[in-house]
């Protein structure tokens, strides 16, 4: 692999360039044909973005300075709040929400989420590495200034050896990172998802609880992420309108997968396409659950809903973007309430369960109160 050409702009193009240039350490020439103006406004990112920054050597202060990064502990879609991190503590291998169901749902589930309690109080502290501390259940995403973030990634990419080029020189691998423009893959057959996802969402109000509102999006994907020597990443491959951090997470996943596989032979290309499709569709299912049309969901999501509705069981597949707790909150937010719970939760008497829940809630409330103001 001598040269990789990235066509696109903004975060999509520069995240790809930064990660590739860092990983290839000069083995391949990474060139970027910049196509558009930098993005504007603020965007949301998931906790997982921090892993990428560690690999790119982007420190928290650098990020804060370049993007006015602010932590966010929860997301609001419509009326419902969905916190990051863990909610409650499971007992004897039975997940917490089963005890909450067994005790008759005495209050919203978010009452047992430290992130939700802290966000409601305008308080924040970084998670604790000590598993005994309630702060260890915290996890946080970020909101970032999009233009500042794209510029930071560009600086990292250029420092790692990537170059801006004029025109589109020949390359062994071409990456379409042009978002919805799909400059290199516009002619590829399209699978339309607008019946499930007539809109996307975008960040409407920044804060510890970030609010997302419907935003227009043309949802769907091209048939194959990689065909021949061209690979589409991020929205150029598939769009679910996930301005809640989902899009960024998918982009990050595409770039990591590209680096892990460096797909050249047919077996690697097939594997790349299989994994990319699986990751996109799992994130799509969460998007449908959060803001899409649930009247006729795709089969894997239908199974998830059925299992959750039946007895609060969370089904996860390979390549999931979201942890179990996110699925639980999203289900409840859409009014999908389990009819029953895990019978093993009944090993604890109803009275003791109620007691335990109220103790846990009080303890989390106190912890939240003791956190510093954001």
């Amino acid at each position, binding site marked *: 692999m001598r040269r990789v050409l990235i066509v696109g702009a903004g975060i999509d193009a520069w995240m790809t360039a930064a990660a590739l240039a860092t990983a*290839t350490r000069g083995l391949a020439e990474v060139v970027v044909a910049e196509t558009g103006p930098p993005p504007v406004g603020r965007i949301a990112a998931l906790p997982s973005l921090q892993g990428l920054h560690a*690999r790119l050597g982007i420190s928290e202060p650098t990020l804060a300075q370049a993007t006015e990064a602010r932590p966010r502990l929860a997301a609001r879609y419509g009326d419902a709040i969905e916190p990051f991190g863990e909610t409650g503590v499971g007992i004897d291998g039975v997940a917490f929400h089963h005890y909450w169901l067994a005790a008759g749902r005495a209050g919203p589930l978010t009452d047992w989420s430290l992130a939700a309690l802290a966000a409601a109080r305008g308080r924040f502290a970084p998670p604790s590495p000590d598993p005994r501390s309630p702060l260890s259940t915290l996890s946080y995403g970020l909101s970032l200034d999009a233009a500042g973030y794209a510029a930071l990634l560009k600086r990292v990419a250029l420092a790692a050896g990537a170059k801006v080029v004029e025109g589109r020189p020949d390359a062994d691998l071409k990456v379409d990172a042009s978002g919805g423009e799909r400059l290199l893959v516009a002619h590829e057959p399209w699978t339309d998802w607008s019946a499930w996802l007539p809109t996307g969402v975008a960040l409407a109000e920044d804060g510890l609880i970030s609010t997302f509102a419907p935003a227009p999006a043309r949802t769907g994907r091209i048939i194959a992420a990689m065909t021949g020597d061209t690979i589409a990443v991020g929205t150029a491959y598939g769009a679910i309108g996930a301005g809640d951090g989902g899009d960024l997470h998918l982009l990050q996943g595409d770039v990591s997968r590209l*680096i892990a596989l460096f797909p050249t032979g047919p077996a690697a290309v097939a*594997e790349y396409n299989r994994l990319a499709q699986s990751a996109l569709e799992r994130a799509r299912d969460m998007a449908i659950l959060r803001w899409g049309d649930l009247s006729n969901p795709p089969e894997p999501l239908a199974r998830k809903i059925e299992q959750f509705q039946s007895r609060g069981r969370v089904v996860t597949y390979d390549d999931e973007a979201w942890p179990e707790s996110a699925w639980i909150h999203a289900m409840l937010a859409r009014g999908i309430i389990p009819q029953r719970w895990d*019978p093993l939760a009944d090993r604890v008497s109803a009275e003791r369960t109620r007691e335990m829940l109220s103790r846990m809630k009080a303890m989390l409330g106190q912890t939240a109160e003791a956190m510093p103001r954001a």
Partner: protein
Amino acid sequence: MTPAPIRSVLIVGGGTAGWMTAAALAKALPKTITVTLVESEQIGTVGVGEATIPPINTFNQVLGLDEAAFMRATKGSFKLAIEFVDWMGPGHRYLHPFGGFGLDIEALKFHQVWLRAHHEGWAPPIDAFNLSAQAAHLNRFAPPSKDPGQVLSSLKYAFHFDAGLYAKFLRDYAEPRGVTRVEGKVAGVQQHGETGFITGVTLDDGRVLEADLFVDCSGFRGLLIEQTLQAGYDDWSHWLPNDRAVAMPCVTGGDGLTPYTRATADTAGWRWRIPLQHRTGNGYVYSSRDISDEDAVARLRATLDGEPLAEPNFLRFQAGRRKAAWVKNVVAIGLSSGFLEPLESTSIHLIQAGITKLLALFPDRGFDPVEIAEYNRLTALQVELIRDFIILHFKANARSEPYWVRARQMEIPESLQRKIDLFAASGRLFPSDLDLFAEASWIAVLLGQGITPRRHDPLVDAFDEAFLKSQLSRLAGLIRQTAQALPTHEQFIARYCAAPHASRPEFKP
């Protein structure tokens, strides 16, 4: 309105599956549910699964078993690896050790670094980078360190034990915790006239045992799941043609009390060697189309490394899985749910996986089809991934007998072919989250069976050779020194968990 809870569970059949289930239910279920196990001393148990894999530790820990007591009671030894001998022709051997290989360098997988070294001709064997493997080579063992900073924390282990004694040990655990054992032979099964649900079983002395939920641990025949409910069977013998085994324990000789299982390829199948404290378990798993029972037992006798301690015990089976492991109010656990030859010591694990899923999806008297479907979906996926891993050993062989040539030429499941093709091209591997065998296991067996990737990850070439050489040699050195400092397997057992009467038992032919 929540349907009424289960009041009673009847486990039909003892043995390893029955008593593991009984022990786990006794521990996990609310005390309001009665658990009964019916078994007959007249029906022998199969007990092929005498070697285990590391997840057994989780099972034992959930029950709260004392490891040393369990080892003493089952005359057990430790297991760090499986040694595969002669699969690539006479004299060839490799280890499939527990645990991973080496340490990733930044975002690069360790095995990709190793592959570059291999392609450049300066790589030591990959098992130099796995502590379990190095300890196995030296016949040494000690439990892993809990400090993740120590090399010793990377050691992963499981056990060899007498499955019959394990069942007995779990019986002694389950009975005081409320499980009722009934001695008797099942003579009849009653079903509900409309639903076909099982309402009870009749014993040969006329007693009737009723329950809400039945666990079928009756072995190959599947007394409830197949003979009564006719779940059906997916036959996999076109991929896994072995249909017989003959087992025969012997006095431990040869390489002695090795902390690893050995699986040696033979003319028409493969032989196992599993050393316990008081004897060595041996067996020959073969295809009856390719060798007669007489020839198989003669071959087994000829390859024992000590005096035989029992007459040969013949087993028959058919590779495959029950089409549905859970039908109506019957859950099949163990051999009643399907059979995969014990080449990767998965028999006991499949029992454990069945129990874990049953607890995670424990029903109520409504027996919601949604949950039954989920149990069956997960079971099918898990077993098929294990099946693929076992098929790999046969497909990628380099032996010349007709049995092995056929194996090499067979069509394999698409899911496995895809894995092999991708690994052969570039050493890449993306196992499913549901796959019992993690990346390192696939790497060990793919490489061991001669599938060496044509290319390594080009990103490894960004590092200079001297740097990688020093990293690899430091790592191998650390692992070797750590292994050398361990006590021998025999010393450790003598000190920690020696069985009271581990001397040679009586045997009168």
